[in-house]
């Protein structure tokens, strides 16, 4: 797309690390021309295409929906594809790009997200439908608009890892389930179609679950989608203490599904 705005200089500092060669990560500095529309991801692509082809980073959709390009820019986790460089320049006219913090670095800006996905699987992120005694489901679910509304806050998560990597508790304890998975647990627990809320609440109410959260709010501040994992965690804390009654209500509710 043609852009006729005047260009300006920007200094992009990128944390580099090649585990085969470098003893520890270091900052590399690149000078590039940007326009008002240049995103951080555009800047990285420009560096990779014209200055240093060995720069390594993840990206895919460029529409802030795939969750691949979450990085730490000027100390804050964000998706780099929907943030403009000129809005993030510091006083010295620089932008500093680092990989997501607290996760093992594979190379440059690419981190190992294994623990992120392992914790995600712990909460069984899929829907567990009511038992049909082995037969196929008949009919369809009827979910009330207000029940859908209650889940709005959680269902647009794109699994980018920004919240997980910003979480101070995750930094100190990799056994902690993490805000991303607890948000998903919240989504399933409050879904009227789900048949196992008590089991889920027992799981997230356990040793590595919601009571590990120190209510630091970094997950909310980091989320590029404006979601609220802390609210989900607080809700799960309340429900975990009355999970049997909650499941009884759920079974009653499902008779009218």
């Amino acid at each position: 797309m043609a852009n006729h705005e005047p260009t300006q200089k920007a200094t992009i500092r990128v944390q580099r690390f090649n585990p085969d060669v470098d003893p520890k990560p270091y900052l590399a500095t690149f000078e590039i021309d940007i326009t008002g529309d240049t995103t951080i991801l555009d800047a990285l692509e420009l560096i990779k295409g014209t200055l240093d082809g060995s720069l390594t980073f993840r990206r895919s959709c460029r529409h802030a929906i795939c969750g691949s390009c979450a990085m730490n820019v000027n100390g804050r986790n964000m998706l780099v594809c929907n943030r403009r460089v000129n809005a993030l320049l510091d006083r010295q006219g620089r932008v500093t790009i680092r990989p997501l913090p607290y996760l093992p670095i594979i190379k440059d800006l690419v981190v190992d997200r294994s623990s992120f996905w392992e914790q995600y699987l712990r909460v069984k992120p899929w829907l567990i439908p009511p038992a049909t005694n082995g037969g196929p489901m008949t009919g369809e679910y009827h979910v009330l608009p207000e029940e859908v509304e209650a889940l709005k806050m959680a269902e647009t998560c794109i699994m980018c890892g920004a919240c997980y990597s910003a979480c101070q508790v995750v930094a100190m304890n990799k056994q902690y389930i993490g805000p991303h998975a607890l948000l998903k647990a919240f989504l399933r627990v409050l879904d009227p179609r789900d048949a196992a809320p008590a089991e889920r609440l027992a799981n997230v109410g356990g040793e590595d679950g919601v009571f590990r959260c120190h209510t630091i709010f970094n997950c909310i501040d980091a989320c590029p989608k404006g979601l609220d994992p802390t609210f989900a965690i607080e809700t799960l804390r309340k429900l975990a203490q009355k999970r049997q009654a909650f499941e009884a209500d759920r079974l009653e509710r499902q008779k009218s599904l």
Partner: protein
Amino acid sequence: MYKTTGFISFLFRRVSGVALVLYLFMHIWVIGAANGGAEAFNARMAVLQAPLFRILEVALLTAVIYHGFDGIRLLIVHWFRVTEYRQSLFYAMFVLFVLVSIVGGVPLLLFALEGN
């Protein structure tokens, strides 16, 4: 380090919490002297009349006030789930902490400096 107001409050909460636990050991050490009679207790209390401990008393007060107010802030978050007011709650708590610390700390400090 992911520096936000949430992180700062968490750091202070941890530091003040650990400091209070350490204080508790000292407290028990002093109070425990009462088992040895009035004289032993008075002798141990005399150790604490040094200026250093008077200043530390002010530090103890600020740690208690911070930890207490931050706890109340978190209880508000837990009960009412008001995560959207996280910044305002922190600042309100911090202002209260500073005010109460001044009200309580200045007389303590004057008392420590006057030395009686």
